């Protein structure tokens, strides 16, 4: 495609103001880079970065892009772990960072936020109104509410305890790919029954429109209690999770674990005594203090039946913060020491143990890199298996990084298919078009393509994410 960059800058400048259009290459590479382990290629680097402040400007940008047939890639904070944030084709990057308004309406029972609001900031604002933001990603310092809802990620939270963030969305303002601005959903705290276009945009990963306002129900802040359990081996934790679902025990809000290796790294990183084996850490929540204490006690009693070395309710919040941060630090330290290649497997819960063992075997028998270390930690109670191949060096080529990513992806996709899962956290399309085709027959993929085409006939928004890429 032949694009006159200075004309593009001038035209976009007329829409948003010239100070909010960047066509210099340094800005373009900064916005194109994401967490994918290999470096940018020329095709990923956009012609321009444009930073609109409202839906009217977004609308004009999209109408212009349709007229000129230039792809537009939506950018929140670029924290996707599976390549959603990297433009797949040359085009315009639409940065939502200036759409940061937060309006809390306690009397209406909801809040509204611009898509560029960072979650940590939103959580702080909501806390002033005794409300909880019902999503808990590790990247919440900078992850945006627009991106979170567009992926509908559960992150740390156990779905069975809280639901997805999309379950709390009452409505949107959305700019369609062809530029029309629409309102969806309701201003009541009662969500629409039946067909509601709001649902189409939850988890649509920016393929069907640009979210310019998110309206979500206010969730009163619950009371929390914390439980930690130490085990000889990871398998005991897997058994306990399976038993929890089987017995119909209320799942905790967070049910994280560190395998034997990750527990050593994480605990050492935060200055805690090295555990003997694997560690599970749980947060339970309830709408009353008594309720949360009772829930913690009952969960603790249940845990004791699952063969832990030791389990206890942690009352000291500072101690809990240390234990909890060991989970994040395990990941950070591994990456500091080398590179990790991750996966997300969410098996049918009665097959959790089988899936875990097979995931381990996949990592230990990779072909594109011999003898990586297997490490696993994360939201096991969800259940999600994050099986990581750890390579103790950063000195590997782009080609090997790509090959490793692909091999991990393909093999763990097969595991998701075998055990009935589809991933519940990292987003599906950008890395997983092949998965969609394999798991659900080609007709399902074709339905998605038809939906995309109906709303975005020129394939303007996030082009490449529905085509499959690497």
């Amino acid at each position, binding site marked *: 495609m032949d694009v006159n960059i200075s004309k593009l800058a001038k035209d976009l400048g007329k829409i948003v103001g010239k100070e909010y259009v*960047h066509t*210099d*290459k*340094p*800005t373009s*590479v*900064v*916005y194109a*880079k*994401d*967490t994918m382990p290999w470096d*940018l290629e020329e095709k990923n680097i956009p012609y321009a970065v444009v*930073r609109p402040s409202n839906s009217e400007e977004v609308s004009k940008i999209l109408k212009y892009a349709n007229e000129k047939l230039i792809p537009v890639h939506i950018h929140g*904070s*670029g*924290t996707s772990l599976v390549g959603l944030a990297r433009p797949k084709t040359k085009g315009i990057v639409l*940065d939502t*960072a*200036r759409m*940061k308004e937060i309006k809390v309406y306690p009397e209406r029972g909801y809040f509204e936020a611009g898509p*560029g609001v*960072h979650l*940590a*900031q939103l959580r702080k604002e909501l806390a002033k109104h005794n409300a909880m933001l019902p999503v808990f990603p590790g*990247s919440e*310092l*900078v992850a945006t509410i627009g991106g979170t809802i567009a992926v509908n990620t559960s992150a740390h939270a156990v779905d069975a305890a809280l639901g997805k963030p999309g379950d709390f969305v009452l409505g949107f303002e959305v700019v369609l790919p062809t530029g029309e601005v629409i309102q969806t959903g309701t201003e009541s705290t009662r969500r629409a029954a039946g067909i509601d276009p709001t649902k189409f945009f939850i988890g649509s990963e920016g393929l069907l429109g640009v979210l310019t306002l998110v309206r979500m129900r206010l969730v009163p802040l619950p009371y929390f209690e914390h439980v930690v359990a130490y085990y000889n081996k990871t398998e005991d934790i897997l058994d306990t999770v399976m038993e929890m679902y089987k017995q119909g025990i209320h799942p905790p809000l967070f049910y994280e674990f560190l395998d034997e290796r990750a527990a050593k790294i994480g605990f050492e990183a935060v200055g805690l005594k090295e555990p003997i084996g694997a560690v599970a850490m749980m947060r339970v929540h309830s709408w009353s203090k008594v309720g949360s204490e009772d829930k913690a006690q009952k969960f603790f009693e249940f845990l004791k039946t699952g063969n832990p070395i030791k389990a206890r309710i942690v009352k000291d919040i500072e101690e809990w913060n240390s234990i909890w941060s060991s989970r*994040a630090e395990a990941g*950070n330290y591994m*990456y*500091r020491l080398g590179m990790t290649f991750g996966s997300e497997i969410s098996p049918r819960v009665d097959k959790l143990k089988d899936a875990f063992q097979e995931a381990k075997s996949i990592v230990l028998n990779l072909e594109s890199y011999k003898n990586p270390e297997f490490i696993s930690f994360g939201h096991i109670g969800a259940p999600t298996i994050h099986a990581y191949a750890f390579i103790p060096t*950063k000195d590997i080529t782009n080609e090997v990084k790509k090959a490793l990513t692909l091999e991990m992806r393909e093999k763990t996709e097969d595991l998701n298919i075998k055990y009935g899962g589809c991933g519940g956290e990292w987003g599906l399309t950008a890395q997983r078009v092949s998965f969609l085709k394999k798991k659900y027959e080609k007709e399902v993929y074709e339905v998605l393509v038809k939906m995309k085409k109906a709303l975005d006939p020129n394939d303007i928004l996030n082009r490449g994410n529905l085509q499959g890429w690497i």
Partner: protein
Amino acid sequence: MDIKESQAVRNTLLQEIGKCRACRFCIDVCPAYQATEWVENMSPYGRLQILKYLINGTLDEDDPLIYSIYSCLQCGRCDRLCKAKGQNLDVSHLIRLGKYLLSQGLVKGSKNEKV
């Protein structure tokens, strides 16, 4: 800075910036990022990426580039953040080294390269 020294600085920068995972956790604490209404190349993450791509030849030296790197106030907030939640990089020190390289006009591929 002689040629040997500047090469050593380039190598250090590439090696250290190579550890950056592009998590962007550092962006919000940067006063320049806040002051410029959240432009990512005015953030610690952005400056490191620009330095990396400049040294590896993806970027040429130009005005906006210089401006981005020099927007660092050396307040060190990003260092704390990277040590606590990121990859334990001395971000502001790396940016200072980058500024120095640029000021010497010694960045490989630059129009002003003196060597």
